């Protein structure tokens, strides 16, 4: 019994220490964002990696999500003779919830895992030590530009997801199922307020931070071996998904 309590206590202390290390890593990454010189060329490079290179997968998933919402929304709303509300239902669902969350999932799978694997490999091959030994802060050089880039790219990707999703829903609802085009857009215009857009924007911004923070942390501290890199990659994706969903709940409850 005592040994069980001891193990539980040790496990708890280790988890608290790990969380502390994660938060101090985040604080350091943000701190370096305000210390010149800014690595503009690295930020642009990572905007391309996180944003431009994720564009196709985000657009595709947005399109199909919107189409599914078109079908499901039509099916549900028809029960109440409210098919004309399809536009507003889709827009609210995408702008407030599905757009930020699903595009964050896509970016985690597409870019977050690659970040963890790249930094993990750099750790294993002593490239991070090499930066440190050249008196170049590896967090400032490797992590901070990625965080800034994700803060810029994530809201843009989410906006693209939303627009393409609404277009997908329009295609299904209006072109396929016969909902009136006028009522589709009129309902959307009446129901969506600026607060809904802000809410989605804030979520996408914070999800961008969460993804980069967790994936960079896991990669940066990966055990220096092949299994260490794969473990870090898996953990970074799973933990990002979990954090995104938990943080989404809190933000939704605050901003509803």
């Amino acid at each position: 019994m005592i040994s069980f309590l001891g193990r539980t206590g040790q496990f708890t202390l280790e988890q608290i220490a790990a969380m502390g290390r994660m938060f101090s890593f985040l604080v350091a990454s943000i701190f370096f964002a305000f210390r010149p010189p800014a690595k503009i060329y690295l930020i642009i490079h990572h905007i391309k990696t996180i944003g431009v290179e994720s564009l196709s997968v985000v657009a595709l998933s947005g399109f199909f999500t919107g189409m599914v919402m078109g079908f499901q929304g039509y099916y549900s709303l028809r029960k109440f003779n409210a098919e004309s509300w399809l536009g507003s239902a889709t827009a609210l669902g995408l702008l407030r919830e599905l757009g930020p969350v699903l595009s964050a999932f896509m970016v985690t799978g597409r870019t977050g895992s690659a970040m963890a694997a790249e930094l993990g490999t750099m750790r294993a091959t002593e490239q991070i030590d090499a930066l440190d030994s050249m008196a170049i802060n590896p967090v400032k050089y490797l992590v901070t530009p990625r965080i800034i880039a994700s803060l810029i790219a994530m809201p843009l990707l989410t906006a693209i997801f939303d627009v393409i999703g609404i277009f997908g829903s329009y295609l299904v609802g209006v072109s396929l199922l016969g909902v009136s085009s006028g009522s589709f857009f009129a309902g959307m215009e009446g129901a969506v307020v600026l607060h809904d857009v802000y809410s989605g924007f804030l979520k996408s911004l914070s999800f961008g931070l969460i993804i980069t923070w967790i994936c960079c942390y896991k990669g940066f501290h990966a055990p220096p071996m092949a299994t260490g890199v794969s473990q870090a990659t898996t953990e970074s994706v799973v933990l990002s998904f979990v954090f995104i969903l938990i943080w989404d709940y809190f933000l939704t409850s605050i901003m509803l």
Partner: protein
Amino acid sequence: MIRVANLHKSFRSQRVLKGVNLECASGKITTIVGTSGCGKTVLLKHLNRLLLPDKGEVFVDGVDITKLSQTELYEIRSKFGVLFQGAALLDSMTVFDNVAFPLREKTQTSESDIKKKVDERLEQVGLGRMGDKFPAELSGGMKKRAGLARALIMDPQVVLFDEPTTGLDPVLATSIHQLIARTQEAFGFTGVLVSHTIPQVFDISDYVAMLADGVIEEVSPPKAFRTSTNPVVQQFIQGKTEGPIQVL
């Protein structure tokens, strides 16, 4: 000069360094030898505080670097060049960009001056026409040479070499040793080299230090080291399995 005093380091329950004392003379090459896994690289990584000791001090030009803030530490690290075991070239950059990297990041040198200096260093290490290659396109020996060029680009006062010839054939290993000796003579840096390729490494060393069981067993010039009466040194030099060094 680098001086290590009573250095202790453990990883979880494994005690690697158990009170290391060592002095590395300025402008000379000190080679740390010892069996695989005895803690040579761990000791080397303490010399520019890539690792922080559990106990003990590391003095660089009289300054205890274990107690420095990060800003102060980075000033000290600017005096160092490091050649890592696998060269640790940044694989997203060409050889030229790797060697130019410290100049671009740490100085205000113009691109034309950077090009001149990088080309000169690459020429010195025999990679004059390899600047536009990526690390993945280089052989092991070429990577080490590129790593050496990068380590020397800031004209360091101290260069740390972590097993520079591991994984290379004897001919290539000798050429890397000669390159280290030649560059040391040209630049006059203090060299600390970790290796277990004996006796070849004796030819370029001014002092040889033997690390065994977490402590420095002996430090002496190569000639005296070879004839040492210390049984640990003799077992290592002769490659015997029986003796004070425990072999699994």
